[in-house]
Structures are given as C-alpha cells and as structure tokens.
C-alpha cells in the first residue's frame, strides 16, 4: 500500500482494527500440502467497509476465516484491535468471537431444530445475557432485518433470503465492532441481495467495520475499498470510485 493510500485511509477510518503481516496458510491433506495464503499484509481501520474480491480458489474464504478467529494462520501475525491473536487462550478467543465479531456465512449455518429467534439469541447465551433481555434483543434484531413476523419459524420454514437475514440478525445482535461476511449474497436472488446489502449499508453507517467477500462487481461497488486477492496474495488495494 502506498503512503498516500495509507494517508487517505487514516483520514476516512479510525484506529486500526485488523493488522495483518506475513500471513501464510498451508493446508495439508495426507502428503499433499497446499499454500492457500502466501504472505498477506494489510490494515483495516475501524469503520471501514472493505470488499475482498478475487477468482475462485484464490484464498478469500481462507483469509476471512483467519480474520474471524475461526482458523489459525500457519505463519505471520494478526493483531485484532491491538491484541495479538496468536497469544490468546481458547477462552479469550471465544470471547473475541462472541463480543467483537459477527460472522455471516455463505451457507447460513443456522440450527435447523431451533426457531429464528432462538438462533439469533445464541451469541447472547454465550455472552451471559439474561433470558428476558435476550429474547427482546433477538426479536429487535429480527425486526431490523424485516423478519419481525417470522420469529417463531424454524430455518426450514424460511426462504434462502430470509434464512440469510436471520444469520445477519444473529451477527448484529451482539452489536460487534466488526462484521465479517463470506459471500453473504452468493446463494440469493437480486431482491434478497439488495435486502442484505441494504442491511450492511445500515451497519456501516452506524460505525461498524465491515469486511465482505464477493464475486459480484455491483456488490463490491457498495464498499469503500476493494482488496483484490489472487493465488494467495493481495494484488490490488483500491478505494472505490477512484480508478486503480
């Protein structure tokens, strides 16, 4: 990243929330090893809206999982809001995932046997929020994503778009500083895509840091900054609206 670009980001964002240096990730299956990330350096500041784009298999999801503390890098350092992730215990990592990060998965990952509001309250259960408050906040979050009428439905009784909105409600119910979304619109039609992107815009406006993976140009265009990744390396880092 050029000093000029860094200057610009500093002016639009706050303190660094994500600081990556030399991140490598090697997958080993049997005797075959595969290096999915080959030295990624980047900084994301508080309040930024970043889209990660790149061809299939380039390492986007791998990167996102590391950012969400769902996976460990093989090499390199990840400093999250000033704390080195590598030095955290399992319990501290659980707390980080619970309080600071909201994750939206491409495959929704909802509990099929539980109603929408039970799914949304799950992070609050692990945060130790009292029962009555949990239900209130879960229903408020579902109302915010336009599902105030469907709180008692199980995931199987909802459309794909509705399920992804439940997942978004679950990500925002703890009011985390950072929302990570791995192709949140990948399985959705244009109408549902617009709904979910509108929700992310709202979250961005309320000051949350958003990192989103996408294949689609119009989705990437909603962000402030695009990170282009190819073969496990960041090959471009451009502000949106400014020609690269």
């Amino acid at each position, binding site marked *: 990243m050029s000093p000029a670009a860094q200057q610009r980001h500093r002016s639009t964002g706050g303190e660094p929330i994500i600081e990556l240096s030399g991140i490598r990730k090697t997958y080993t299956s049997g005797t075959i090893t595969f290096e999915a990330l080959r030295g990624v350096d980047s900084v994301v500041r508080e309040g930024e809206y970043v889209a990660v784009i790149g061809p299939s298999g380039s390492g986007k999801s791998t990167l996102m999982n590391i950012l969400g503390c*769902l996976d460990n890098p093989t090499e390199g350092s990840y400093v999250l809001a000033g704390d080195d992730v590598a030095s955290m215990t399992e319990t501290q990592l659980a707390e980080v*995932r619970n*309080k600071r990060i909201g994750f939206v998965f491409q495959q929704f990952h909802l509990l099929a046997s*539980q109603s929408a509001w039970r799914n949304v309250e799950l*992070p609050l259960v692990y945060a130790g929020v009292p029962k009555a408050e949990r239900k209130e906040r879960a229903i408020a979050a579902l109302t915010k994503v336009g599902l105030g009428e469907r709180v008692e439905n199980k995931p199987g009784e909802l459309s794909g778009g509705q399920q992804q909105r439940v997942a978004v409600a679950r990500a925002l119910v703890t009011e985390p500083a950072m929302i990570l979304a791995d192709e949140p619109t990948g399985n959705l039609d244009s109408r549902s895509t617009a709904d979910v992107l509108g929700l992310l815009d709202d979250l961005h406006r309320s000051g949350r840091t958003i990192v989103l993976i996408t294949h689609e140009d119009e989705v990437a265009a909603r962000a402030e900054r695009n990170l282009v990744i190819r073969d496990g390396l960041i090959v471009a880092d451009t502000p949106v609206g400014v020609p690269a």
Partner: protein
Amino acid sequence: MNTAETLRTALEAVRSHRMRSILTMLGIVIGIASVILTVGFGQGARAQVQEQISALGSNLLIISPGSSTDDSGSRGGFGSATTLTLEDADAIADSDVVPDADAVAPTTSTSTSLVAGETNWTTSVVGTTTSWLDVRTRTLASGRFFTQAEADSGADVVVLGPDTASELFSGTSPVGEEVTVGGRTLTVIGVLESSGSSSSGTSEDDVAVVPVSTALALTGSTSTSVSTIYVEAASADLLSAAYQEIDALLTTRHGIESGDDADYSISTQDSLVETASSTNETLSVLLTGVAAISLLVGGIGVMNIMLVSVTERIREIGLRKALGATPSAIGKQFLAEASILGLAGGLLGIAIGVVGSWVLPAIIDQPVTLSLAATAGALGVSLALGVGFGVYPATRAARLTPIDALRSE
C-alpha cells in the same frame, strides 16, 4: 453460560432429537431392567432355598434309606428303599447308645384319600412319634398334637396340615370333626400352623399326621420300614457327635462290612445348605453372566448412539464455537445431555425392573428379590457409558478450530 442455561440447552437438544434420545434411553432401560430382574431371580431363588432349609429345623440329622452313592447311577429317589425300620429309630432313641440325640422322629409316608362328609382329598399321611412336632419345628394353629399314650395305643386321631384342613372342611374348624381313611374313622385333634415355605409340588402344609402305629394299621402293612428318621441333636455343637454315634450304630445294626456301601444315608442341614448353595452358585454365576451381557449390549447401544450423535453434531459444535462458546461450555452441554438421557433411561429401567419384580412372581411362581447393589451398579455403568461416550468425543470436537468443525461431514 450458567447451569440453568446449560440444562435448558441440553433439554432442548434431547427434545428436538426425539428418536435419537429414545434409542439411547432404550439401551439403558433394557440393560438396567434386565440386570435388576436377572439378579433378582438369582437372589429370590437363593432366599427361597435357604428358607426351606431353615424350615426343616435346627440341629437336625436326616436319615434316609438307600445308599447316597448308588453304583447304578440312578438313585430311585429318597425313601424308595426299605432298609430303615422303626426298630432302628428305637435304637437311636436309646440314650445310652446315642447320648447326643435329643429327639427321634421316624416317619412313614403314604399317599391316601381322606373323606370328610362329601369331601374327598388325597394327601400324604405321615405316621410318626410325638417328637415330630419339635424335630420339624412345627407349631399348632388349633387343637393339640397326639400324646405318648395315643401314640403307644395307635389311637384313631389325626393332626391336619392347614391346606388339608381347608380342603376338607373349607373354613369351618375341623377340630373334633371326623375323617375317614381307608375305612377307619379318625378324629381330628389339631391343625398345624403353616410352615411358611412350600417347595413347589410337595407342600409342607398339605399333610395328615397320625401316630406311626395308626399309620401301619391304616395301610394294613406288617413291614416296619420307615421313609425317614429325623434326629434332633442336643445342640448344634453336638451334631457331628450325634452323626458319628448314629453312623456307628446303624453300621452295626445293618451288618455293613467296612468297604461296603451303607444302605442308608445321613444328611445334615449343613450338607443340604452346601448342596443348595452350590446349585445356587451355579445359578448366580449364570444369571450374573446374563445380566452382564445385557448390560454390555445396552452399553454398546448407548455408546454407538452417543458417538453417532456427537459426530453428526460436530458442525453444530463448530457453529456454537464460532458464536462464542468456550470448549468447557460445549463439554458441559454434552455432559448435561448425556446425564439427562442416562438418568431418564435409568429411572425408567428401574421402574420396569421394580414392576417386573412384582408382576413376574405371580406369573412364573418364582420369587424375585430386588437388589439395591445390582440396581445401583447397573445405573452407574450405563450412566458412565453414556457420559463417557457422549462427553469424550464432544470435548474432542470442541478442541477443533471452529472452521474445521464447521467443515466436517
């Protein structure tokens, strides 16, 4: 996550996977119920045999005709030989020859029909002496036993067992009434108290006891052979002394050369207890084996379902971790789930075992004793299996990174 929250989550998981929960519990239910019932059978049978033996009376020697070791291999049953006589009994009763014998009761036994008015009942008529009541530790419910004078004179009196009395006189007091046996009319002078134990087939409560001379007169037999001689030793300590005295006496009386098989056998209660408890030991080992196998089968069932259940829920574990669950929260959730299943299945199994131990004796005519140790042991084993195989794989899965758990098939 606090305990109430953990329990709620676990209960919800149990309820939302109904089929799997039922299958897990089924293994525990079957295992525990069968352990309770099989061990209960063993203990019930043992208690029954012990009761029958102690009902025979203490300090008792039982002399039966016929060798205890017949070379032909077939013993023909106790009492089928006729080598024991009233004279033998008289000789044993001689306190100079057998000083350690307290009381001697020879008995003859024939199956005969008794008639009272219109009623006809076939029972075993026992001819004996006045010592019988003492030696067999029986008591009278009403009336009296026959006297020495009645025994000597062969009086026409009879003492009925309680079952015989109620068969012949259905409810009304038989004392003073008359029964006809083989053309002779006997007066009922007493009714025995129930012996409290009945080995199936030969009830101790269905008898008619008469003086031995009366019994001989009834059958019209001139033989003085008896089916059993009961001897009560002066005390338990003198039992073996009495045994040796009687053995020596009978060897001489029967002219048995050394090396020959005796034509009688003397058994003590101890030897009966020994035989019975060795039979019981075999039964116990067999039943314990059956119980252990059913517990094993139940346990393997629980183990399988727990392992499958955790494996198919590794994605759920990954998701919960991604949302902020600590490994210990996951461990506690699965511990609570396994405990709920184990306890519910265990209590149901105990309930079935207890109900079975009430109902089965009525159907199969065998007592079933509830064993606390077996119940607790079975519950402990199935709880341990459920918890072990439920919690161990869950905590292992909780140690995976969330993404590895989420990606697992």
